[in-house]
């Protein structure tokens, strides 16, 4: 087994005396698809926010690719190779679908401010490279037909796809997906699963997936972490998780379809 891509030790965060997340240990190996599940308010998104630099953890350590990324600014985390989607879709609404992806591609482009202002050759070269790469991502997600639409005018399911395409365009090694199938119908969810499996192979990605849809998680994840009340209560393969009494207890009262 190679060294873990992401390693999280004793991670915790306190908001005004309230321990939102504590004592979380996790690892993700290169190429692995890992699920993060738990009841509402268990601290899943908070964990994402710590991994991506939106929140600075109050305790513990996050190591990515051999380097500590604790408290790094979000854009630096992204440039370092972790990108994400948002649970409550956060597209750039007044930008075109293509431009949404181009924004994420920004960090991979080289042409500088002066070359753009004075329209030097490197600007044109850089911009056409961005255009090419961004279109390629749109094609993978079947969004190329919408490229000139404003993001806000896309149908809901397409907006969710665009979120993933955009995250991918930032060139991550680890992709964090926050409930990518929320609000989708079963057919759309199925298509999305296929797509996630495809991009993982195509781009040699590790993926950490938050999801409420148990089918999706159990179906495609190799390993699963379960959070409850801000703490990890279980870790293991889908089969192990399904049989774990602690997990069943945590979900008691919630609608479970295991």
């Amino acid at each position, binding site marked *: 087994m190679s060294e873990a891509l992401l390693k999280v030790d004793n991670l915790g965060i306190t908001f005004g005396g309230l321990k939102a997340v504590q004592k979380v240990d996790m690892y993700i190996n290169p190429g692995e698809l890992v699920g993060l599940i738990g009841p509402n308010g268990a601290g899943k998104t908070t964990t994402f926010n710590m991994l*991506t630099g*939106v929140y600075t953890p109050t305790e513990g350590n996050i190591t990515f690719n051999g380097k500590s990324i604790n408290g790094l*600014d*979000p*854009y630096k985390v*992204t*440039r370092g190779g972790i*990108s*994400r989607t*948002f649970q409550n879709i*956060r*597209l*750039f*609404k*007044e*930008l075109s679908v293509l*431009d949404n992806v*181009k*924004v*994420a*591609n*920004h*960090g991979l*482009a080289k*042409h500088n*401010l002066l070359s*753009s*202002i*004075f*329209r030097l050759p490197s*600007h044109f070269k*850089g*911009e056409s490279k*961005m255009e090419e790469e961004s279109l390629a991502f749109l094609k993978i997600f079947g969004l190329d037909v919408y490229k000139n639409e404003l993001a806000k005018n896309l149908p809901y399911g397409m907006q969710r796809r665009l979120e993933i395409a*955009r*995250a991918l365009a*930032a060139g991550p090694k680890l992709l964090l997906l926050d409930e990518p199938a929320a609000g989708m119908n079963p057919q759309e969810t199925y298509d999305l699963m296929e797509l996630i499996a495809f991009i993982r192979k195509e781009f040699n990605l590790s993926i950490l997936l938050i999801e409420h849809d148990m089918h999706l998680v159990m179906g495609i994840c190799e390993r699963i972490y379960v959070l409850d009340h801000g703490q990890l209560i279980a870790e293991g393969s889908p089969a192990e998780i399904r049989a774990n009494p602690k997990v069943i207890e945590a979900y008691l009262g919630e609608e479970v379809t295991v």
Partner: protein
Amino acid sequence: MKKSKVFWGYIVLALVIYAVIQVLINNGTVTFYYQNMLITMCINIMLAVSLHIILGITGQFSIGHAGFMAVGAYVSAICTMQLEMPFITGILLGAIVAALAGLLVGIPTLRLKGDYLAIATLGFAEIIRIIFLNIEYVGGAAGMQITHQTNWTYAFFGVVITILIISNFTNSRHGRACISIREDEIAADAMGINTTYYKVVAFAIGSFFAGVAGAIYAHNFYIIQPTTFGFLKSFDILILVVLGGLGSLSGSVIAAVFLTIVTTYLQGFPETRMIIYSLVLILVMLYRPSGLLGTKEVTDLFKFGKRGGSNA
């Protein structure tokens, strides 16, 4: 390439406008009165476009733009009047110092959001004004005498360069980064955009061209006083950008042209002008908050026509 053809088309159009008006000025068809109106129009366009990059593109609510205009005006005036430099050097130095002032103001304040940023920029603009008020070297409250050096050529090419550079900036990865901040700062950050850097860059570019406008303004009116650059001036500039449509460069330009004409005709009735201005401002915000063009450009409106397909 199609894009560069459109670009050169605009440049030729600009040169034709320049030449025609210059000829009309030379043969006396455009009188001094109208020449002055055209120069004021150019200054207002520069101010509007320079605020547009901060407010319309990057979404940072600055309401102290007159402060940077003041820096450009005073620094250029010091260059030409006290240090006897040529006008063009004065414009450049004024703009550079204004951009530095923009950096100085922007770096601490751009961490603030919305209302707080607005009020902080207003505060900084007032501080800049009070500083000039207290410097005897530039005449204090009495102001500074300046020889008339601005002419149609300076004003017009000031506008052309301002628009060219700001639209070049906007239509590049750097401009898109700024727009993404306007749209959703947290998402922009998560997509790898250094939001602080781009906010400061937009602020500095905007301040630079406000400085150019200030320099050209200073050398058009024989005297500058600190009171000229109070927050009423900042609001005047704000009105241009808001009416044109936040995010629309051509909208800002059209609003600047239109309001300069209105202002010129209402010169004898400043109160009436302000009442009309403020009523228009309130009505636009209540019934069409996106302004004249929203985030669209005039060129977008022609896209459905013959030319189709151009992305400029």
